C-alpha cells in the first residue's frame, strides 16, 4: 500500500505543477525562516552570533560562499544550557534546566490531559443533553478567554496567595486546565455534533448502555478531534509565560520563565545559549505534532468536507 500512496503523491505533484510547488516551497521557507535562524544560532559561538551581516552558513560550505558569511558550528551552547560557570573563571554549575524542562513537560502534559478528560465529557453533555439556554452557557464558558491575561492576573494571584496554591504544581496545573477547558469544550462539542445520532441509536438497539455508547461508539470516532485539541492546547500551555512567571516558584519554574532569566549578566544577552534553549524547547512540540499529524489533519478539516 505504501508504494501506492507514494505514487499518488507523485501524481499530486504532477497535477499542481513544478511552478506552484516551488512557489509553495519559497513561501514555506519565508515562514520557517525565523525558526531556522534560531536553530542556526544555537550552533554559533557568541562572537559569530553577534556578527553583521548574519553568518547563516556552516563553514563546511566555505568553498561555496565568502568566509565572512560562514561560522564554525559548536555544541557548547547546548552543554551550557544544563551546566555552565556563572562568572568568569568560576567552576561550572548545574543550571537547573533539566528540572525546568521536566516542569514544562509535566505541567503542560498533565493540564492538557486533565482538560481533555473534563472537557470531552462536558462537551458530550452540551452536545447530547442540551440544557435550557445551552448556547448561553457555552458563551459564558468562552468569556473567560476573552480578556487579556494581564487583566485577570491580579485577582488570580490573590486567589493563589490565599489558597496557598502559588508556587505549587497543583496550582499551575489547575490554572492551565481552566485555561484549556473552554477551547477543549468548544472543539470537542463540534466534533460530537458532527457524529451521526443514528449510529448511537443503532448501538442502543444493539444493547449498549449510554456509557458504552459514549466509550465504544462516540469516543473512537472523535480520536482525530482529541488529537487536534490536544496539540492546540499543548502549544498554548507550553508557550505560556505571564502566569508561569508570576505563579510558579523556584521548584516549579517552566522553561519560558527560566529562559527569560538567562538574559543579562556580564556579557549581555547570550544569543547562542538562548537559541539553544529555544531549539531544545521546540523538540517536544515538533515530536508530538509529527506523530499526531495524520490525526491532526483529519481533526482540523473535520466537518469542512462532506463525509
Amino acid at each position, binding site marked *: 500500500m505504501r508504494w501506492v500512496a507514494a505514487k499518488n503523491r507523485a501524481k499530486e505533484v504532477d497535477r499542481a505543477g513544478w511552478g506552484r510547488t516551488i512557489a509553495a516551497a519559497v513561501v514555506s521557507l519565508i515562514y520557517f525562516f525565523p525558526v531556522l535562524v534560531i536553530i542556526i544560532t544555537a550552533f554559533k559561538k557568541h562572537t559569530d552570533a553577534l556578527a553583521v551581516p548574519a553568518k547563516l552558513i556552516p563553514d563546511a560550505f566555505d568553498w561555496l560562499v565568502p568566509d565572512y558569511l560562514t561560522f564554525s558550528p559548536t555544541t557548547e551552547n547546548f552543554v551550557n544550557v544544563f551546566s555552565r560557570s556563572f562568572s568568569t573563571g568560576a567552576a561550572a554549575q548545574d543550571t537547573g534546566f533539566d528540572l525546568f524542562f521536566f516542569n514544562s513537560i509535566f505541567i503542560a502534559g498533565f493540564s492538557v490531559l486533565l482538560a481533555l478528560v473534563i472537557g470531552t465529557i462536558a462537551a458530550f453533555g452540551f452536545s447530547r443533553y442540551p440544557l435550557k439556554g445551552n448556547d448561553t452557557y457555552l458563551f459564558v464558558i468562552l468569556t473567560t478567554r476573552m480578556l487579556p491575561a494581564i487583566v485577570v492576573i491580579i485577582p488570580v494571584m490573590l486567589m493563589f496567595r490565599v489558597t496557598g496554591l502559588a508556587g505549587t504544581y497543583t496550582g499551575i496545573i489547575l490554572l492551565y486546565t481552566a485555561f484549556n477547558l473552554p477551547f477543549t469544550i468548544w472543539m470537542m462539542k463540534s466534533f460530537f455534533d458532527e457524529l451521526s445520532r*443514528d449510529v448511537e441509536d*443503532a*448501538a442502543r*438497539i*444493539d*444493547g*449498549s448502555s449510554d456509557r458504552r455508547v459514549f466509550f465504544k*461508539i462516540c469516543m*473512537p*470516532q472523535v480520536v482525530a478531534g482529541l488529537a487536534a485539541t490536544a496539540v492546540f492546547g499543548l502549544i498554548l500551555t507550553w508557550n505560556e509565560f505571564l502566569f508561569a512567571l508570576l505563579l510558579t516558584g523556584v521548584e516549579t519554574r517552566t522553561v519560558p520563565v527560566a529562559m527569560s532569566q538567562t538574559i543579562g549578566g556580564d556579557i549581555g544577552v547570550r544569543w547562542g545559549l538562548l537559541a539553544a534553549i529555544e531549539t531544545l524547547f521546540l523538540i517536544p512540540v515538533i515530536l508530538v505534532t509529527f506523530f499526531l499529524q495524520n490525526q491532526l489533519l483529519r481533526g482540523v478539516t473535520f466537518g469542512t468536507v462532506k463525509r
Partner: protein
Amino acid sequence: MASENNPALRLTNISKRFGDVVALEKLTFDVRQGGFFVLFGPSSVGKTTTLRAICGLETVDSGSIEIDGKDATLAPIRDRGVAMVFQSFALYPHLTLSENFAYPLREAGVSTNEIKKRVGETVEMLRLSHRLDNKPATLSGGEQQRVALGRALIRHPKILLLDEPLTNLDAKLRHDMRAELKRLHRQLGMTIVFATPDELEALSMGEDIAVMETGHVVQQGTPDELYERPRNLYVAAKIGSPHMNLLEAKAQPDNKGLDTPFGPLVVHHRDLPADEPLIMGIRPTDIKIAKNGEPHILTKVRLIEPLGDLTIVSFNAGGSHLRIVLSEADAIGIQPGQDLGVVIAPEYVHLFRKADGVAIANAA
C-alpha cells in the same frame, strides 16, 4: 411465550408529542406473527417515530405497546428483542465489517466462538464473504445496506424494523434488495415492520399495509383491499400508480347516475345523497378506449408517456385532466391533440363524499 394467537406486535392508542408538534395521535395497529407489515405514508407522517417507539428509542406519552402479548411500553430497549435497520444504515464507521456484525452479540455477552460462527452464517446468508476487514466507508451503498441488515439479523430478533431501507439505493439495487428482503423473510420467518413512502414498495412487499396520515393509521389491509376498497380519498389517492383519477361529481336527483364534468354518467350505485358534492374516482387502468360505434366520452389527448410495455395517456375531458394506462399495442398511433373516445365502465367507479373524503361506494 410466543403464541400464535397473540399478535407479534400490538400498538394501542399511541400518542407522542415533541413540544407543540404532534407526532403520533392515537396510533393503533396489529402485526401478526411472522408477517411482513408495511407502514406506508409520505414523509413526516410519523413512520420513523412509530418505529423508534416500538424499539424503545422514544418513550410514548400515552397508549401501550405489546410485543408477543406482553406489555413492553416501558421495557428497556435491550429486552424488547427488536432490531432496526436505519435509513442511513448507521454502520459503526470506526469498526470493520466483522466487528460491526459482532457488536450486538458482544453487547449481549455471546461467547467468542459463537460470535465467529454466527458472523460466518450471516456473511454467507448475505453473500458478503469478502472484505470483512474493511471499514464501512469503503463499501458501496448496496453493500452497506446488506451489512446493516446482517447486523440487525445476527442476533435473531423477534421483530425486525426497517426504516425506509431502500430509499438511499439506486433504482436497480432497490429492485434487487426488494427481492432479497422477501427471500430473507421467507427463509427466516421473522416478523418484519417496514416503513416506506414508496407505494410500489409498499404494495409489492407488504402482506399487510397500514396507510398513515399525520400520526395515525387511516386504513389497514392487504394490498388488494387498499387498492379495491380505499376507505377514503387519502388512501385512494396514495395507493395505485399512476394515481386514481379524481373528479368532482353530483348525484342526479332521480338516482340514475352522476353529473360529471364531461356529462352524465350511468353508475350502478344506488341511494346516493343527491344534495351533496361528491368526488368520483376511477383507476387509470379502468378507462378503456371506445370501440367502433360504442357510446363514448369525447376527449382530447394532451400528453403521451411511453413506459415501455405500457403507455400513460393524459387527456382532457370536459375541462378535467384524466389519465389512462394502455398497453403499448393499444397506444400505437395516438397523438397529442387528437380526439379520443373513451368508455368508463360504471362498475369501476369509486365515490367519495367531498366534505370529509370518506368513501360511500367502492368499485364493484
